[in-house]
């Protein structure tokens, strides 16, 4: 089942203004750089973006914010971004903040056909406002619903022609969960290999969740907080 598309242009065909997108990554780690650049180029707007973070001013989703292409962000943490702050405080940008674990589980639930589940996260806080509360094991839990998207855009380390994906280290993060939850899931990979080259025992995202795959032209992989120790 060949899922390979020629390039990023072909991969993002059909993405339109007003759509809901999921974008993998944690901070700038494991983000679909090539697809984000293409979204900027396409100029689609009024997007609802589900992503753990919102990038930095001049990289990641920050690039879409600069072009005012995002109408609403659904995230868990959105610091590190002045333009985000400006747009949010001025009311240009809607923001829905979600506990990180609930965000991850809601994406997985969306992909797994589980429409809602109970979690203790956020009980007693403003996150729980208007949500159903139920006690389990003597502890209050709130009901959270699944998230899905018109397109999920993920970044993997290696992928094969059938759309099977593997991620590297902590660049995995939200990518496999969002891959499950897209009506159409686009994967950009650092290395595209023929089917059969990846060990079937060690695939992180089975190809059934992926509709389009392409090898990204260039990955900058910017580091947000370079922390090192001197060589001894």
């Amino acid at each position, binding site marked *: 089942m060949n899922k390979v598309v020629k390039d990023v242009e072909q991969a993002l065909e059909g993405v339109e203004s007003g759509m809901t997108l999921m974008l993998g990554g944690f901070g700038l780690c494991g983000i679909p750089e090539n697809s984000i650049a293409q979204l900027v180029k396409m100029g689609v707007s009024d997007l609802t973006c589900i992503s753990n973070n919102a990038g930095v001013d001049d990289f990641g989703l920050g690039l879409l914010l600069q072009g005012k292409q995002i109408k609403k962000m659904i995230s868990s*943490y959105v610091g590190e971004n002045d333009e985000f702050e400006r747009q949010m405080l001025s009311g240009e940008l809607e923001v829905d903040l979600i506990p990180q674990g609930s965000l991850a589980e809601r994406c997985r639930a969306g992909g797994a056909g589980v429409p809602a589940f109970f979690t203790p996260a956020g009980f007693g806080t403003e996150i729980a406002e208007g949500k159903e509360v139920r006690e389990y094991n003597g502890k209050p839990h709130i009901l959270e619903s699944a998230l899905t998207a018109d397109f999920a855009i993920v970044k993997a380390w290696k992928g094969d022609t059938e759309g099977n994906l593997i991620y590297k280290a*902590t660049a995995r993060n939200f990518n496999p969960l969002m891959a499950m939850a897209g009506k159409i899931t686009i994967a950009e990979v650092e290395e595209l290999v023929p089917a059969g080259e990846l060990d079937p025992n060690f695939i992180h995202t089975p190809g059934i969740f992926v509709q389009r795959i392409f090898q990204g032209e260039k990955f900058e992989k910017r580091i947000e907080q370079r922390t090192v120790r001197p060589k001894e």
Partner: protein
Amino acid sequence: MALDKNGIAKRIAQELRDGYYVNLGIGIPTLVANYIPEGIEVEFQSENGILGMGPFPFEGEEDADLINAGKQTITARNGAVFFDSATSFAMIRGQHVQLTVLGAMEVAQNGDIANWKIPGKMVKGMGGAMDLVASADNIIVAMMHTNRAGESKLLKECTLPLTGVNCVSKVVTNLAVLEIRDNQFHLVERAPGVSVEEIQAATSGDLVIPDHVPEMNLD
């Protein structure tokens, strides 16, 4: 003398037990990893997807694909594992992590914590904090006893939007170690040279002071 950040971290490190899986928040909590007591083995989880976090990489060996939840470049120890965010919070929500250390803007005497939002100012988001405090049985808050304006951060009730309710079991500040139970702060230890009166004066919530309050032993 009141402790500095490293002193707070050092004191919290005494709470580590052999075999603990530990999640350390950003800021002072991160420093706890530098003071693991001898003869004790613990494993650090970072909610972005690693168990078995090691020290920062040597200069030139940074890997953009290997970071912690504070987005800092890190290394992985022998026996480390990488996983996705849902699995990561399965560990946290499922109470497989034995100790969570995090910072706070306010802690109330019923164990409520506020550390994610100041209305009217920039809202950065709660990240994983709400999941962590709602799930963990053993939560230690690491913070300064008072804010920059000199106001107590240990309150009868939180004034800021809550991160979680009835969840903090212990607070370690620059002045003291306090346990939270029966809707009160219980003074357990003083920072070296800090008097009970100083602590009382810096604590806005109800403080239970036993006859004898030992000094922390930080050697």
